[in-house]
């Protein structure tokens, strides 16, 4: 009958409420409407996700844009192109062990700060924000950066650190359980960056132009949907993807992200955001080389999609 | 009453599903200095009886008395020699032969000198610092004998000590053991499957019946054989005669396979 349904294999870096629009697109059937069958797989961690993409284990990766720069800098002949942005701020929060009513960043000085693991976007954004507030991560506080992403919350819960940089929903869980208190948002402080983006290999995009277009359109639909619906409705929709999480909690987290504008409202990754990303990476000493926007980002598709 | 008295000994091995009667109604009197052999079909309970005499197993009924005392207590003055030498492979020969006195805490200079002298007597020189595996089977069994004698036991139990040796070595060792025991006037019990060995070495041969082991018959070895060394005894006409008698008797006990 109609056009053949194309399957797109997507590898996401982690299963997180942070990526709510993606799950909405799946749950609401936006991909299906476009004639796509999306096969979603979680490959824990940016490294594994990018590896999956490079080794043709996935067609599209949802992962931080910094990985595409790493790959390019190592001399890839088939660069990975960012084509649709999903989140536009950092997604972590500063959680304090003690309750602090009037938090200022100065209070971090001399304390132990349990950060994210070295080389990843959360760590770089974290250090960037610290520096922005005049704190030298090397000398002004004791920085712990040796814990794998998944183990950071438990390390903090078992007594390591005065402050911790946490993703949702753990930050909210900690607050709910009285284990810690959210005192600041790295997302609000870092400004807009291409934090999580859909990307694919150049060769794939050439060969599957239409599919990429359809994919981006579906994402855009979902972004608009999330933007125009309440946190509660969004939480309801994506619940099947978070079977073991309290629906109340999902709602809290979504509203927190919505408030600080973490969910991108369109898939366009503009040049300003790209500059900011490289700036942050440069500050952290992890930028292997400057890459211009037009090499690794394709805004055409996104622009076409939102029309 | 003799030097060693076994009084109405019964023993049964139990497992969850079975009860194996091993010994029934064993009464034996052995005089000091006597050399007695136990002969009997496989599994008739000979090793069990030695273990009971050594006090390693508590019999279900009856008791074993050595020199008027129950053998069940430690330091009972009994030496036990097994089928294989069971020298400790990680100990030197010296450590091996002194393990007995060391364990029961009687090790002193005198005992050490005595034991080493005994080793010399067994024609084992210059092996003190060797390890057991550097020795031949016959040498090892001689070392085991020295180890057993080191605590100067009143009674020696020998459970098929020569069965793992080749024929020539075995004949030589029989002579050596026999003369050593005669010299020290030791009382000994020898378990063996070899009728010839039993006749050649002992004063009396006790024939056990099939399981549960009972004493089936007792043969006294003629005086003239006893005075000979085992090797000579084997070539005496009286030996052949007794051999035939015991062989027939044993044949009648073992069921055809």
């Amino acid at each position: 009958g109609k056009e053949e349904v194309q399957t797109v294999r997507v590898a996401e870096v982690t299963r997180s409420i942070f990526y709510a629009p993606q799950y909405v697109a799946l749950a609401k059937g936006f991909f299906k409407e476009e004639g796509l069958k999306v096969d979603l797989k979680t490959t824990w961690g940016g490294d594994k996700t990018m590896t999956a993409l490079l080794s043709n284990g996935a067609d599209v990766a949802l992962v931080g844009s910094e990985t595409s720069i790493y790959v390019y800098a190592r001399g890839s002949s088939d660069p990975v192109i960012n084509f649709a942005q999903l989140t536009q701020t950092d997604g972590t929060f500063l959680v304090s062990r003690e309750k602090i009513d009037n938090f200022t960043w100065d209070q971090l000085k001399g304390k132990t700060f349990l950060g994210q693991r070295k080389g990843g976007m959360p760590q770089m954004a974290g250090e960037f924000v610290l520096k922005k507030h005049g704190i030298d991560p090397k000398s002004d506080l004791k920085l712990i950066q040796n814990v794998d992403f998944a183990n950071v919350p438990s390390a903090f819960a078992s007594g390591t650190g005065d402050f911790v940089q946490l993703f949702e929903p753990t930050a909210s869980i900690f607050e709910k359980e009285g284990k810690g208190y959210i005192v600041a948002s790295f997302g609000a402080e870092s400004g807009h960056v291409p934090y999580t983006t859909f990307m694919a290999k150049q060769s794939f995009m050439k060969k599957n132009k239409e599919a990429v277009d359809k994919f981006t359109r579906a994402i855009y639909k979902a972004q608009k949907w999330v933007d125009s619906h309440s946190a509660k409705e969004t939480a309801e929709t994506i619940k099947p993807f978070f079977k073991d999480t309290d629906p109340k909690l999902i709602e809290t987290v979504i509203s927190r992200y919505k408030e600080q504008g973490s969910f991108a409202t369109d898939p366009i990754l503009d040049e300003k955001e790209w500059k900011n990303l490289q700036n942050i990476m440069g500050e952290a000493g992890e930028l292997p080389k400057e890459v211009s926007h037009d090499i690794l980002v394709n805004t055409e598709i996104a622009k076409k999609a939102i029309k | 009453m003799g030097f060693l008295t076994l009084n109405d000994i019964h023993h049964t091995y139990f497992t969850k599903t079975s009860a194996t009667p091993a010994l029934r109604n064993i009464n034996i009197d052995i005089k000091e200095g006597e050399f007695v052999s136990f002969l009997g079909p496989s599994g008739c309970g000979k090793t069990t009886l030695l273990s009971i005499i050594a006090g390693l197993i508590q019999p279900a009924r009856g008791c074993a008395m050595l020199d008027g005392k129950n053998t069940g207590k430690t330091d009972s003055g009994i030496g036990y020699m097994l089928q294989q030498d069971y020298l400790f492979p990680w100990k030197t020969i010296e450590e091996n032969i002194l393990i007995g006195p060391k364990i029961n805490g009687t090790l002193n200079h005198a005992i050490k000198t005595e034991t080493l002298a005994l080793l010399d007597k067994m024609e084992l020189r210059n092996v003190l610092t060797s390890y057991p595996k550097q020795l031949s089977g016959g040498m090892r069994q001689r070392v085991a004998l020295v180890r057993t004698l080191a605590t100067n036991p009143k009674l020696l139990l020998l459970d098929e000590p020569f069965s793992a040796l080749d024929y020539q070595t075995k004949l030589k060792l029989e002579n050596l053991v026999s003369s050593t025991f005669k010299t020290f006037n030791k009382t000994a019990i020898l378990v063996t499957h070899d009728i010839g060995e039993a006749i050649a070495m002992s004063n009396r041969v006790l024939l056990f019946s099939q399981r549960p082991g009972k004493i089936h018959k007792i043969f006294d070895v003629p005086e003239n054989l006893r005075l000979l060394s085992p090797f000579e005894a084997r070539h005496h006409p009286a030996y052949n005669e007794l051999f035939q008698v015991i062989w027939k008797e044993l044949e009648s006990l073992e069921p055809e396979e």
Partner: protein
Amino acid sequence: MNPKNETEQLHLQYIKRLNKGHKQIRFYQLLIFLAFFSIWELASRKNWIDPLLFSSPSKIWELLQTKLTDGSLAANLGITLTETVLGFILGTLLGTCLAALLWWSPLLSKILDPYLVVLNAMPKIALGPILIVALGPNLTSIVAMGAIISIIITTIVVFTSFREVDHNYLKVLQTFGATRFQCFKEAVLPASFPTIISTLKVNVGLSWVGVIVGEFLASSKGLGYMIIYGFQVFDFTLVLLSLLIIAVFATLMYQAVELLEKKLIKNG
């Protein structure tokens, strides 16, 4: 008293004592079991341990029931079990074939010897990420991980057993004019059968490790996934439930292989 009767009585007494001993042991085992879980529950309720990190038996029990009713546990368990069994059969088979090849060609075995040593010493776990690069993040890599972890050790153990088959068995066959293949078929392989079976026991454990680590690295289902996911969403009840289920099923599988070993070796 007649001796027959006496023996029977003594036997009865013996069995009574035996049963009493068994009961005592069972009692202590149960005691430890109950004590462990009650103390855990109590400590969690009284906040002696952090209930968030260490959850509690009752919470785990509840979660187990929900997971059982919605069928998701069965699905995850099924995946992991399949992967493990596949990995373990593959590892054993390939390892044994490799061993046969080495036995067949003494030259080859000498040439490959240093490589086998290196591959054996290498912690195969570290290869996990490379495997994903090579095979992609899918079931294949996980099964491959479960197999790779046991192939080399199987090869070495089975090959050693092939070589250590009593040469006199081969001598018997050679006097009848047997070829090398006949020697292998009639003596070497059957004589090593017990060794091969007992490597199964080791391999089943190794395959679990391989599969769990594989699932840590790339998966969307399975018990290893449940652990990683639980950590991700900070749901330690889920993590501990998965761990307990792994413990139970790893034990069951191990016992099954042990049973198989006993059955097969009985006639061996």
